[in-house]
């Protein structure tokens, strides 16, 4: 993550710079997380211009509300990705009125086929439904007519699959 992409600054240093509102933090923050956050937003929204605007808003929100981030307990990428995803989903909801089972940009359209091909179709579907279509796990269970416990177990398996990607 942060520590993997920027050899010049650790995540703890980045958090400190953000806490004291040092503008030098912005470039490091962008280098570490912009691409992943943009890709999440882009899959939800399906429009490059809109995705860039939402990414910009995510950085603004992070910059202005960073005092709410508790470095002792919270995890920076999780915090940022939740802001980005919720903003994008809210934007999509306002535009399309209802959520669709099919995400606007499916994983099949990924530019990294080698990565996607390592995931089973079931795991892909769960990741798409949860991360990019905005369904809760309970809603997914209802939509797929499956037991909630099974969806929870499958979701964990899908995340484990992400951890094993090469």
């Amino acid at each position, binding site marked *: *993550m942060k520590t993997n992409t920027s050899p010049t600054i650790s995540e703890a240093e980045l958090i400190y710079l953000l806490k004291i*509102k040092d*503008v030098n933090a*912005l*470039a490091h923050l*962008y*280098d570490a*997380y*912009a*691409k*992943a*956050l*943009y*890709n*999440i937003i*882009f*899959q939800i929204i399906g429009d*490059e211009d809109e*995705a*860039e605007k939402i*990414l*910009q*808003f995510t*950085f*603004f*929100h992070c*910059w*202005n*509300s960073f*005092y*709410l981030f*508790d470095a*002792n*307990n*919270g*995890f920076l*990428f*999780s915090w940022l*990705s*939740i802001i980005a*995803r*919720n903003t994008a989903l809210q934007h999509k909801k306002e535009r399309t009125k209802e959520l669709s089972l099919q995400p606007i940009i499916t*994983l099949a359209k*990924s*530019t*990294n086929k080698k*990565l996607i091909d390592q995931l089973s179709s079931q795991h892909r579907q769960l990741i798409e439904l*949860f*991360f990019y279509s905005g369904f*809760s*796990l309970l809603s997914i269970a209802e939509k797929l007519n499956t037991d909630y416990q099974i969806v*929870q*177990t499958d*979701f*964990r398996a899908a*995340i*484990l699959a*992400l*951890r094993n*990607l090469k």
Partner: protein
Amino acid sequence: MDINSYISSGILERYCAGALAESEMREVERMAAQFPAIKKEIQAIELAIWNFNDQIFEGPHDQLKASIIQSIKINTNFNSPITEKAIPSKPIATNFETLAEVKVEPNIEIKTENNSPIQATILNNEALTNSSKNQKKRIGYGIFLVLILPILLAVAAFNLWNNWDSLKQELKETKKVAAKANSALMSIDSNLKATHQQLDTIRNPDVIKFTLSGMKFAPNAKAVVYWNKNTNNILLDPILLPLEDKMHCYQLWCIANGQTQSLGTFSATNKNKQMLPMNGTTQAGVFLISLEPKNGSEIPNISQLCLMSK
């Protein structure tokens, strides 16, 4: 607590994906703070989600980084006056008037010494003579126009280029102003969201309010502590505190059951008067704020006690 069962329950994956309720999230964070194995597991899950999303598409275009950073920097200094102003360039005076006054002298002069029959015929045929003169005049005008047209076109083109350059400048300035306005709007929106979050926190029926009044050291100081008895979270509203110098900071304390606990340090130089999340406490008794050396103290300095809850 069986840590392995907790980890394999799937709650950590749902935490990283943002699929938990607020209270469940706080619970996971408490567990992570208590058990390093859980914290390590969360970091591994977070890394996997980040790594996956980082690789599935190409990401935004290269110019976006500078644009976002610049917008935030402008927003940070938004209150500074706009020093650059769009001043339309003054159009350069054309030479039309001068050109209009150019008189064309006839370059063909016909002189007659006597009235030859031909000349008489011509003179008798006034209409023909006039027609010939008119034709020469027209040729003269034609030559004039041929000569003057490129100059006119050049002047017009220059004038057009000048106006276009001026409009380009105006557009550039307008874009700058629009970017600043856009930044301000985003900032307002973001601040509003933050304010709503704070409002939601203090409206929570589980939250207990402690009003802190000024002591002898800072008699006019005022602050409020909001303590959530369920989550144990603390939110501090430093309403009025004298600005500390660079060598000092303020420190919030909680005294309960005879124990004094530090809830963290903070500065009064809080630009937007925002509420500050402080370290949580499981028991609330009396809250104190004291002025301490820069990195805080182990115990409160009673001689510099600023505020105390009743």
